[in-house]
């Protein structure tokens, strides 16, 4: 870049150029301005258009990369712990090498078919029209956010604040959509709050993510009525937001595994293990209005595909 030539006279004896403070200051200031703009802006942040442009440009690339590597890796192996991977290796090694390659290929197709069938079942059981989509990118843990990108966008009728689920239960909600992709905030995210109804008592509570995925992925449930004690094994379903956005009602979320009560807090706290295996997230469905016209066939509430 042009910086090089003007910097030549700044060469030190040892042959390494000292960085100009003006450049560093400008960069740091640019970062600070960007953070301030995005921090103050919230939903209507001036950075949002830039995010959309970036999403429009990189979305198809991520989609292509994901479909390119999927047959080899299989998204089911996401976030797997080393132990389960080791078990997997042991199991695989027992198989004949010749058979193994065949099984891997057909097993991949079969599992995808099963997931799509599961989605159709989910649409009929819960009574919502779903736009099918696949997970194409995952946010790294280094960013401390639990978000994924799916390959359905506004072209498929997906809009922000729609519910995302899979055949096992609630996955999250759409927070941002470009033409071909959408970003989904998983219910495991530390900033995700979902209203839930618990067990037969139908009591209301709020489920907060802990920001962890994988085996340790759990949600914390806080009940609105402090007198109620949830019991272990109770199922939790979504409470449903007004107008069905961002969460529709009656979607299974998970079951109670532990109950805590401390003298310090008046409310009981319960830990929920989600039904969805977030480490093997692949085919998901976005709850869309029944009359949505899009670039793909919808799985209708009556089980039909249109």
């Amino acid at each position, binding site marked *: 870049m042009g910086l090089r030539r003007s910097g030549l006279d700044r060469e030190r004896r040892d042959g390494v150029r000292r960085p100009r403070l003006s450049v560093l200051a400008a960069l740091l200031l640019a*970062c600070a301005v960007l953070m301030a703009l995005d*921090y103050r802006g919230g939903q209507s942040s001036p950075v949002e258009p830039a995010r959309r442009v970036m999403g429009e440009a990189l979305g198809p690339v991520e989609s292509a990369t994901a479909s390119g590597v999927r047959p080899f890796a299989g998204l089911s192996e996401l976030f797997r712990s080393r132990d389960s991977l080791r078990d997997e290796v042991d199991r695989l090694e027992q198989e004949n090498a010749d058979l193994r390659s065949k099984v891997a290929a057909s097993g991949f197709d079969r599992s995808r078919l099963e997931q799509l069938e599961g989605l159709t079942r989910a649409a009929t059981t819960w009574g919502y029209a779903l736009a099918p989509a696949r997970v*194409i990118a995952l946010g790294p843990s280094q960013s401390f956010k639990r978000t994924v*990108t799916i390959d359905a966008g506004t072209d498929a009728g997906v809009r922000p604040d729609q519910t995302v689920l899979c055949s096992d239960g609630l996955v999250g909600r759409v927070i941002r959509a470009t033409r071909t992709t959408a*970003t989904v905030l998983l219910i495991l995210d530390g900033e995700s709050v979902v209203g839930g109804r618990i067990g037969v008592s139908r009591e209301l509570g709020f489920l907060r993510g802990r920001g962890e995925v994988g085996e340790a992925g759990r949600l914390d449930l806080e009940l609105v009525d402090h007198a109620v004690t949830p019991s272990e094994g109770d199922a939790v379903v979504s409470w449903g937001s007004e107008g069905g956005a961002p969460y529709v009602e009656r979607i299974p979320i998970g079951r109670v595994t532990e109950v805590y009560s401390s003298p310090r807090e008046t409310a009981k706290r319960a830990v929920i293990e989600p039904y969805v295996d977030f480490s093997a997230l692949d085919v998901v469905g976005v709850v869309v209005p029944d009359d949505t016209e899009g670039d793909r066939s919808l799985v209708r509430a009556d089980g039909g595909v249109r």
Partner: protein
Amino acid sequence: MTALRAVLALAMVSVAVVLQVSLFPHFAWEGVVPNLALLVVVAAALTRGPEFAAVLGFAAGLFVDLAPPADHIAGRWALALVVVGYVAGRIRSDISTDTGAGGRPGATAVVIAVAASSFIGTSVFALSGLLLDDVGASVGQMLQVILIAVVWDVLLTPLVLPLVMAVFGRLWPPQRVAVA
């Protein structure tokens, strides 16, 4: 020519970011993936020095901040990678004084630079989140993630760094960079 080089450098950064979100989750360990964008910035710092690396770090950080599915406050990774570019560049100048004029850093030096950069990068990102109230994880989780990230980045170093450093070396031939 300068514009072409800049475009190539940006292309490398965007490939790194896409691989980071679409390919590496298959190999994730507790959700932590190798930070390829950071490795590219460190490679730039080791071949071209702190100023160039800081500028490239800013661009790479913007990519990570804005590319889906990122949802944190924009500018946080940009800040982290500017710091990484600067620090890694300074590490290079220390190495050069040791090994002679404009000397290419040896393997140990590269690994040390990557480990330090990875630790600094993720830490700066986590700290900026604490300051901006954009956290999403407990401090204990953060420490765990920071340490796993260091391990990942060091593991990927022998595969990525020589390649990327060679590309930067080709784009900017060394005799024009380090006049001793």
